[in-house]
């Protein structure tokens, strides 16, 4: 991704589902965490699969470092489709995971409100 030096503000990367489709799970996680550790807000058009979310939490934990990186704040709409997806669909990775996901550094992003249809977050500068 081309480097942009923010002058005075917060950089937001909106990443399309198409761009994510071509990446392996660990590449996605690396891209998210590299962005977030630089102080950016990462917005994924289509989110991550449950397995990738689980690995994102795990890798985030290994990178937390006192006074440097406290972890991430992540918000998505609640998943509705999973409960309806067939076992075969889930086995084949065809479950519907397409849900907008916002990820940012825990010390810069705060969730104000969340429900099934609305996510309100407050983003502050470093």
């Amino acid at each position, binding site marked *: 991704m081309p480097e942009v030096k923010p002058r005075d503000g917060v950089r937001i990367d909106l990443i399309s589902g198409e761009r994510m489709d071509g990446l392996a799970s660990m590449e996605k996680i690396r891209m998210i965490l590299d962005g977030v550790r630089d102080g950016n807000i990462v917005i994924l058009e289509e989110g991550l*699969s*449950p*397995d990738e*979310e*689980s*690995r994102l*939490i*795990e890798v*985030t*934990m*290994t990178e*937390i470092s*006192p006074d440097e990186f*406290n*972890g*991430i*704040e*992540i*918000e*998505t709409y*609640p*998943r509705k489709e*999973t*409960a309806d997806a067939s*076992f075969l669909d*889930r086995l084949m990775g065809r*479950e519907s995971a397409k849900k907008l996901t916002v990820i940012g550094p*825990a*010390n810069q992003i705060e*969730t104000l409100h*969340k*429900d099934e249809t609305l996510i309100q977050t407050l983003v502050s500068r470093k």
Partner: protein
Amino acid sequence: MGLLTGLRSSISRAASTLFSDEEPKRIGIYGPPNAGKTTLSNRIVRDWTEHGDAVGPESHIPHETRRARRRENIEIERDGKTVTIDVVDTPGVTTKVDYTEFLEHDMEKEDAVRRSREATEGVAEAMHWLREDVDGVIYVLDSTTDPFTQVNTMLIGIIESQDLPVLILANKIDLEDSSVQRIRNAFPQHETIPLSALEGDNMDEVYDNIAEYFG
């Protein structure tokens, strides 16, 4: 022990393993920090084992449990049948750990930093167990707090995606601000059982459901 006796004993152990009923199911006790997971684990162990030693220490300070701990072969009797499970008490799952929060609990910086490091390792361990090593999940929530958090949404999604049986427990019903309905509304697709692990309230219904879901 004589050689022959030892050999006979080994064969007997191997045969009993080979021909015994199914291995006990490993039930992971999951949830956010401070939901009462260790209090519940201790309650289950004390109710159903002879010695009843605690699985781990309970505390109001978040991340008291920083390692997954397994207690094996807990036999729960319901309606004349016995269900045998292994209980795995796991560290509370979160996406962030800030050592400065521990300083508010009168902890020195060095201890707070160590606790936060151990906490992050514990969360990673809990996620690994969830992906690889549990056969079912008891998801514990503090019924006095908002269940609509990202960690809860993600974890329930991860559990569902693995087709693991899950029982949601609405803990701390002994407290005034408790709302079990709020949890039922957040996760209507799953059974939610109210309880107070600390006071032992409604544990009969909890054990009935454990036997039904994981037996």
